[in-house]
């Protein structure tokens, strides 16, 4: 009976506005007063459950002065030591873990051992903290100015300005609750992309449809990026397009390298979580299916439906995430995902073995003191092959977001690697 009354009242007015919210209300708990169900979900992102290729495993550790975390996610470097060889000389070879729920983003960034290897800029925080209010403050009223100021600060200083992981106001307007993009890097990245497609000064918050926004809010962070120039500006390399080929072409034109490979001297690039880019090449994106449809499916609460703010692997929530569109059983849907992921994973391993062979050859050639001229071509191939492989490796759906494209990319990576090995042999002094 209580139940029914409850439902009725809820039905009559879905939102109780008990507290006023504005663009300075960073604390999700405050928003939670008005939207308790979304807040509950949001907080559940602390859960750690592993799927075959996703989710995350809760690994206990003894907290230390430097790193107070008592639980972390499993180390990918331990799962596959070949990654260390691929990233030799770069911070990722020191510490790289499976990603976990949003609740951990700020801590995991603050305490990753990668911080011990390099001095990082404030830019890092763009995707690991609620920086919206801080940016306004820093830029006193000018978001972009605040963005630039934050980027320029050393990480340690910038870190003092933030307290929360991604929060409500990073995705929502406080008055209408409409979705909005709050990250200048995404605004600029998408404007560049649209310009390339012939659309002049595109403004996401003005021109995007609601369904597009359900992917764009995620695209603010789940993308490939780099820090441009001495100002460490956060830039998304999309001005030629979202395909791996177009992104590499961009970096080549910029003559950008993330680091020089320690063992081979190759001008290497590190691809990072290009979920948005790979998704854009898949059949779901083409069908207008957004990130939120699968990662934040509607869920029944009392008499209403709300978006499940427990952002996580859809494989942990198949009935809501998939079955409204696909009538197959949960087991069948999981099996379909696994088939796609397994194919991707096996080809990824083949590409990884090939890369190891090239790195070994190049390393030997360097040790043998062969002149750079003889190694240039092989190094160029390593740069390409490695970026292509990493593009799929770093993408977190293990190919699901665009199965054929992922396999295509790995196939080309293999071709580049092997050609690099051939270049070394054919350039051998006769």
């Amino acid at each position, binding site marked *: 009976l209580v139940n029914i009354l409850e*439902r009725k009242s*809820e*039905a009559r007015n*879905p*939102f109780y506005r008990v507290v006023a919210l504005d663009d300075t209300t960073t604390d999700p708990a405050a928003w939670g007063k008005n939207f308790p169900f979304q807040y509950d979900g949001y907080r559940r992102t602390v859960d750690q459950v592993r799927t075959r290729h996703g989710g995350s495993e809760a690994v206990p550790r003894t907290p230390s002065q430097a790193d107070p975390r008592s639980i972390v996610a499993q180390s990918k470097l331990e799962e596959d030591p070949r990654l260390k060889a691929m990233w030799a000389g770069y911070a990722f070879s020191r510490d790289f873990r499976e990603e976990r729920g949003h609740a951990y983003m700020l801590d995991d960034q603050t305490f990753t051992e990668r911080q011990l290897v390099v001095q990082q800029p404030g830019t890092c925080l763009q995707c690991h903290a609620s920086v919206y209010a801080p940016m306004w403050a820093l830029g006193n009223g000018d978001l972009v100015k605040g963005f630039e100021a934050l980027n320029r600060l050393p990480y340690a200083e910038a870190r003092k300005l933030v307290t929360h992981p991604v929060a409500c106001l990073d995705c929502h307007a406080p008055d*209408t*609750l*409409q979705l909005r993009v709050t990250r200048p890097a995404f605004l600029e990245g998408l404007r560049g992309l649209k310009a390339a497609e012939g659309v002049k000064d595109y403004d996401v918050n003005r021109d995007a*449809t*609601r*369904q597009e*926004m359900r992917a764009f809010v995620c695209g603010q962070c789940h993308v490939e990026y780099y820090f441009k120039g001495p100002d460490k500006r956060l830039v998304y390399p999309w001005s030629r397009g979202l395909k791996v080929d177009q992104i590499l072409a961009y970096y080549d034109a910029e003559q950008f390298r993330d680091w020089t490979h320690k063992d081979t001297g190759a001008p290497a690039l590190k691809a990072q979580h290009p979920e948005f880019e790979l998704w854009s090449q898949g059949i779901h994106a083409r069908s*207008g299916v957004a990130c939120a*449809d699968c990662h934040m499916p*509607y869920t*029944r609460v009392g*008499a*209403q*439906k*709300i*978006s499940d703010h427990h952002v996580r692997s859809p494989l942990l929530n198949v009935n809501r995430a998939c079955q*409204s*569109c696909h*009538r197959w059983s949960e087991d069948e849907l999981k099996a379909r995902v696994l088939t796609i992921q397994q194919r991707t994973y096996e080809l990824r391993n083949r590409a990884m073995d090939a890369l190891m062979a090239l790195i070994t050859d190049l390393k030997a050639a360097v040790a043998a003191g062969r002149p750079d001229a003889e190694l240039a071509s092989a190094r160029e191939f390593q740069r390409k092959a490695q970026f292509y492989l990493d593009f799929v490796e770093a993408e977190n759906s293990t190919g699901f977001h665009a199965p054929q494209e992922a396999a295509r990319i790995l196939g080309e990576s293999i071709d580049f690697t092997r050609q690099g090995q051939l270049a070394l042999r054919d350039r051998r002094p006769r």
Partner: protein
Amino acid sequence: MTAGPARAAVALAVAMGLALGIGAYTFVYARGGSYLTDDPAACANCHVMREQLDGWTAGSHRAVAVCNDCHTPPGLIGKYTTKALNGFWHSFAFTSGRFHEPIRISARNHGVTETACRHCHAAVVASIDAGRHGAARLTCTGCHASVGHLQ
């Protein structure tokens, strides 16, 4: 498909007396009048509606909504203008045999249906569909394509 101009053109031809002739003939013979009832079976007087009838019979709404609950707007006027429009055009299409197959719902009628969803499920969707200024509406059928007709 059922493009505006195309319809206009046909409309002209029809206006030229044809309407009374063939139009009326069809409407009676092919039971275009079925459009005026609420009996789902009546819709299937046109065999081309059979698939949807079957789909509806297999669907989750069989027990809770008849064709017209989803395919005509609430309110008598809206209801009967829509019925008249569809009844006439579909009768005409049926007779002339000129229509796209598989049959696809028109933008207008899709709008009618989407409104119907919200009409019955106002409570359920209140929070996801509530007053978003400017933002385009959700499309219920984007996720629930087979509620009306199990596909």
